[in-house]
């Protein structure tokens, strides 16, 4: 292979490089900084993220690519970079007071956050399955460690173990799928596959089944990342056990990254054979939203409830894969942007409600009447819940609206009816949180809490963002529409 053929273009990956550099710096500082100076570490982390964001914004619209399509800076990749960077930024803010509370202010935590973000960006910004796989693994390995970060907490250990075993199990399916795809087309480049897919099988006698098995295994691998039923079972346990900011992080960025890769693989590379795989996504969508919503009905642990809600939301997003139109893709981008805001907002409230002794997740004991004692948290939690349930005028409403309406336009009325019934069911458990916060006599241990500045900032930013998107969704939708690959 002639090395001069590799087109090296560092500019394309500047945002990723910045994250990597800051990550390593954080690791080094963790080792050499005296304990009382470690307060600056989180600030270093968010500065890195902000810098990376700044460079991503500069790249927007350029459409650069480099390294023979292995690294891209098209608008699609950058839109997802924005989602990842914003969610990581918010998670860093969430973590500041959380780690202080846990007396665990450590650089490796933030370094791992940055590496995970870097991995997600790789997943969204490449045409090559190798890089997508690499990115996915960087995310996964960082998250295995992060979810076990409370080393003394058996729940955290258990979450970490389950996440790790299930995750590497799923990874093996993913790479097996990639191997079969590679065997069919002789390449792992999605652009070339897009070109070859209609004439599936380049080598003589390749059975069609190998290709489809490959596609099936890819769905399994990514289905795990986006927690679609029946590959979802890790999620509730990991959410419950992992440190709360990390649970929020998992629900936001990595999930979005999984969708980014799925979008590029299925709605770009395999779009020409869409009829072959549409039904699978139809079933996964129905299973995910129904299972997620039904099981959420029983949950009294808020983190677990949000895990099932996250599974259900994954189901709604999968509808877009069934319809597959351009408006569906922009709907996914909108949905994910709205989703990270409302989910991280809800997690911020949970962290504010917790303390060193308790996590702030028990709906009955810790939330009854809490809305009246903490009106700020109560009102914003109500906004987040209403948005998750899809009430206007919040971002959640338009997110659902765009995806559902694109599915109707593509002729999947039945699927939309199932989805609407599902969101009706979901109203019950989201509103129950509000009911508990405002309409139940408060338990004795519920007291007004003082909210650290960084947490209050996150709650305020996400709440305002949700309402702004709910009232004026147009700007973001235009941006999403211009970001389709």
């Amino acid at each position, binding site marked *: *292979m002639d090395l001069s053929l590799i087109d090296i273009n560092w500019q394309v990956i500047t945002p990723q490089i910045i994250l990597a550099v800051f990550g390593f710096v954080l690791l080094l500082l963790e080792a050499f900084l005296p304990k009382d100076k470690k307060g600056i570490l989180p600030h270093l982390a968010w500065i890195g993220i902000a810098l990376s964001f700044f460079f991503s914004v500069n790249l927007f619209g350029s459409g650069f690519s480099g390294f023979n399509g292995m690294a891209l800076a098209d608008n699609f990749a950058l839109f997802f970079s924005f989602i990842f960077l914003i969610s990581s930024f918010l998670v860093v803010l969430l973590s500041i007071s959380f780690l202080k509370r846990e007396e665990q202010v450590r650089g490796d935590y933030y370094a791992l956050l940055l590496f995970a973000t870097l991995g997600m960006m790789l997943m969204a910004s490449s045409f090559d399955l*190798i890089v997508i*796989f*690499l990115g996915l*693994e960087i995310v996964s*390995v960082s998250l*295995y*460690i992060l979810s*076990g970060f409370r*080393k003394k907490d*058996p*729940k955290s*250990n*258990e*979450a*970490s*173990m*389950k996440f*790790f*075993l299930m995750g*590497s*199990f799923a*990874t*093996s399916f993913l*790479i*097996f799928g*990639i*191997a*079969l795809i*590679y*065997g069919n087309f*002789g*390449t*792992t480049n999605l652009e070339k596959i897009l070109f070859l897919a209609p004439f599936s099988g*380049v*080598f003589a006698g390749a059975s069609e089944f190998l290709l489809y098995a490959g596609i099936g295994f890819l769905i399994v691998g990514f289905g795990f990342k986006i927690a679609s039923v029946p590959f979802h079972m890790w999620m*509730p*346990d990991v959410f*419950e*056990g992992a440190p709360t900011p990390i649970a929020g992080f998992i629900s936001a960025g990595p999930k979005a990254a999984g969708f980014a890769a799925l979008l590029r693989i299925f709605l770009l590379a395999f779009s020409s054979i869409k009829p072959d795989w549409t039904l699978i996504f139809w079933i996964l969508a129905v299973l995910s939203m129904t299972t997620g919503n039904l099981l959420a009905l*029983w949950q009294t642990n808020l983190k677990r409830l949000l895990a099932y809600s996250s599974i259900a939301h994954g189901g709604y997003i999968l509808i877009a894969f069934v319809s597959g139109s351009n408006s569906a893709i922009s709907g996914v981008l909108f949905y994910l942007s709205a989703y990270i805001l409302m989910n991280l907002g809800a997690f911020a409230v949970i962290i504010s409600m917790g303390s060193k002794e308790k996590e702030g997740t028990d709906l009955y004991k810790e939330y009854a009447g809490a809305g009246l004692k903490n009106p700020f948290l109560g009102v914003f939690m109500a906004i987040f819940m209403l948005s998750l349930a899809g009430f206007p005028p919040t971002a959640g409403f338009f997110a659902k609206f765009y995806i559902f309406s694109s599915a109707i336009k593509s002729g999947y009325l039945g699927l939309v009816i199932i989805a609407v019934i599902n969101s009706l069911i979901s109203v019950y458990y989201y509103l129950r949180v509000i009911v508990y916060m405002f309409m139940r006599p408060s338990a004795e241990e519920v007291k007004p809490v003082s909210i650290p500045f960084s947490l209050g900032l996150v709650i305020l930013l996400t709440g305002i963002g949700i309402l702004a998107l709910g009232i004026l969704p147009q700007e973001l939708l235009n941006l999403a529409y211009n970001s389709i690959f």
Partner: protein
Amino acid sequence: MPSLYHYLSLSALLFCIGIFGALTRRNAIGILMAIELLFNAVNINFVAFARFIDPQAIVGQVFTIFVITIAAAEAAVGLAIIILIYRQHKGVDVDKVNIMKW
């Protein structure tokens, strides 16, 4: 001279053994080993495909290197996690680790 199909069959067989192992072992280390087996089944696949169908014969081999590297990283992290579990439960039986359910 074995053909592509022989390699594919070997890999499929290994993969099935790996799945069987992952489903039946109760020992966390055992599951970890089964997963390594899964990865290696995939590696055989990649190398075989690279040998038989990729004219440049490079992508598959590169991918294999990546998989091996990542398997090593995962094993390192996994063992660390399993040690934590061992400290908590005085054992590595995964069926005893189920505080969280439903």
